[in-house]
C-alpha cells in the first residue's frame, strides 16, 4: 500500500515526535503526584490561597515574638521572676475580624507564642489546654468576651496578672481579575487589674490572587 501522502514519511515522523512531546507535556502537566515537604522543600513556599499557611504564620509569629521579647513589659516580668515572683500570664485566642476563615491558623499562632514563652522566659504561662471550657466560652462569646473588662474577669478567675491576646483585621478588595487581602495583626499584653495595654505590636501581611 502506498502511503497516502508520498514523500512525507520524514515529515510524518517529525510531526509524530512533536505530537508525542505535546501529549507528554499535556499529560505530565495534568498528572499529579503526592510528596512530602522533606522531598520538596519548595512545597511550603508556594502560595495556595488567601488564607494563612505555615510560611505566613512563621512570619507573623516572628515579627511579634521578637518585639515582645525585647519589650519593657518582658523586662519587667524578668525582673519580677528574679525577685521570686514570676507573673502569671494567661493567653487568650486572637480575635478574627477578617473576611477569611483563619481560626485554625490563629490558634496555631497562639500556640507558637505560648511555646516560646514557656520555653524561653521565666514567666508562668497558663496554657490554653488547661483553660478548656473557659476558652470555648471566650471563643463563643466573641465580641462580648473581648470586652477587656470581661477578659480581665476571666484572667482573674485564672489567677493571672496579665493576659496576652490580639486582633486581626483585613482590608479585602477585588477587581474583575484580582483579589487582595491585606492583614493587620495586633498582639497585645494587658494588665488584668487596670486594663492598661502594656505591650502592643502590629504585624502586616498581604496575600493576593492575580490574573
Amino acid at each position, binding site marked *: 500500500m502506498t502511503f497516502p501522502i508520498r514523500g512525507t514519511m520524514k515529515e510524518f515522523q517529525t510531526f509524530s515526535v512533536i505530537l508525542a512531546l*505535546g501529549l507528554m507535556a499535556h499529560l505530565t502537566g495534568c498528572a499529579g503526584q503526592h510528596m512530602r515537604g522533606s522531598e520538596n522543600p519548595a512545597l511550603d513556599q508556594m502560595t495556595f490561597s488567601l488564607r494563612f499557611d505555615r510560611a505566613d504564620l512563621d512570619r507573623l509569629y516572628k515579627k511579634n515574638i521578637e518585639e515582645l521579647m525585647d519589650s519593657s513589659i518582658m523586662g519587667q516580668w524578668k525582673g519580677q521572676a528574679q525577685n521570686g515572683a514570676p507573673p502569671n500570664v494567661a493567653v487568650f485566642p486572637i480575635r478574627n475580624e477578617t473576611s477569611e476563615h483563619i481560626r485554625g491558623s490563629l490558634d496555631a499562632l497562639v500556640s507558637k507564642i505560648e511555646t516560646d514563652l514557656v520555653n524561653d522566659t521565666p514567666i508562668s504561662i497558663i496554657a490554653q489546654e488547661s483553660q478548656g471550657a473557659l476558652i470555648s466560652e471566650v471563643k463563643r462569646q466573641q465580641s462580648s468576651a473581648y*470586652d477587656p473588662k470581661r477578659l480581665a474577669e476571666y484572667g482573674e478567675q485564672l489567677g493571672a496578672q496579665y493576659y496576652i491576646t490580639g486582633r486581626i483585621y483585613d*482590608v479585602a478588595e477585588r477587581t474583575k481579575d484580582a483579589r487582595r487581602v491585606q492583614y493587620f495583626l495586633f498582639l497585645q499584653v494587658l494588665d488584668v487589674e487596670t486594663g492598661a*495595654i502594656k505591650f502592643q505590636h502590629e504585624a502586616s501581611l498581604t496575600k493576593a490572587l492575580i490574573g
Partner: protein
Amino acid sequence: MRFTRLFAGLLAFAFLATSFAIGCAPQYVRDTEKRDIDEAAMSTRLDRKDLNRLYKENVDKMMSSSVVGQWERQAAQGEAPVVAIFPMRNETSQNLALDALLSKFETDLVNQTAADVVSHENQAELIAEIKRQQSSAYNPRRLAGYGKQLGAQYFVTGKVYGVREQVKAEKRQQYFMFVQVLDVETGAIKFQNEAGLTKGFMK
C-alpha cells in the same frame, strides 16, 4: 505537500501551545514574592496604604503636640496619665477597616508615649455618649462622670467622614479623618487634627 506540512506543523504547534498554556492561570502570591502588591489602588475604599497615610499624618501631629508633652511631664513626676481610646466613628456610607486604625493608634500611644493606655472599644454606651458630643445632647459633666468610672483623664477619639461623587462611570471618594484628644474633666479639646485623602475611579 506544502499544505500538508503547514497544516501538520500548525496542528502540532497548537497542541503544544495549549499544553503549556495551562501554566498561565491566575496564581496566588505573597507580598514577599511580589513587592509592589500593596501599591495598586483596587477600589475607592481605604486600603493599607491609605490607612497608613491618614494615620501617619494625624499621629505625627499628635505626638509632637503640647498635650503629649504634658503627659511626658506628668509621667516624669510619677503620675502617668490614663488615656482611654475609643473607636473611630465611621461617618461614611462605607464599611471601612477603622478598627485597624484604632489599633494603630493604640500601638503608638503604648509604645511612644508615657501614658497608660486603656482600650474601651466595647464600652458602647460611652461611645454613643461621645457621638452625642457634637449634638445638643452633649454633656461634659456626664463625660467627666464616665471618665471617673474608667479612671481616665483623657479620651482619644476620632471620626472619618467622606464625600462621594460620581459622573457617569467615573467616581471620586474624598475622605477626611479627624482626631481629637479630650480632657475628661473639663471636656476641653486638647488636640485636634484633620487629614484628607482621595480615591477615584477614572476611565
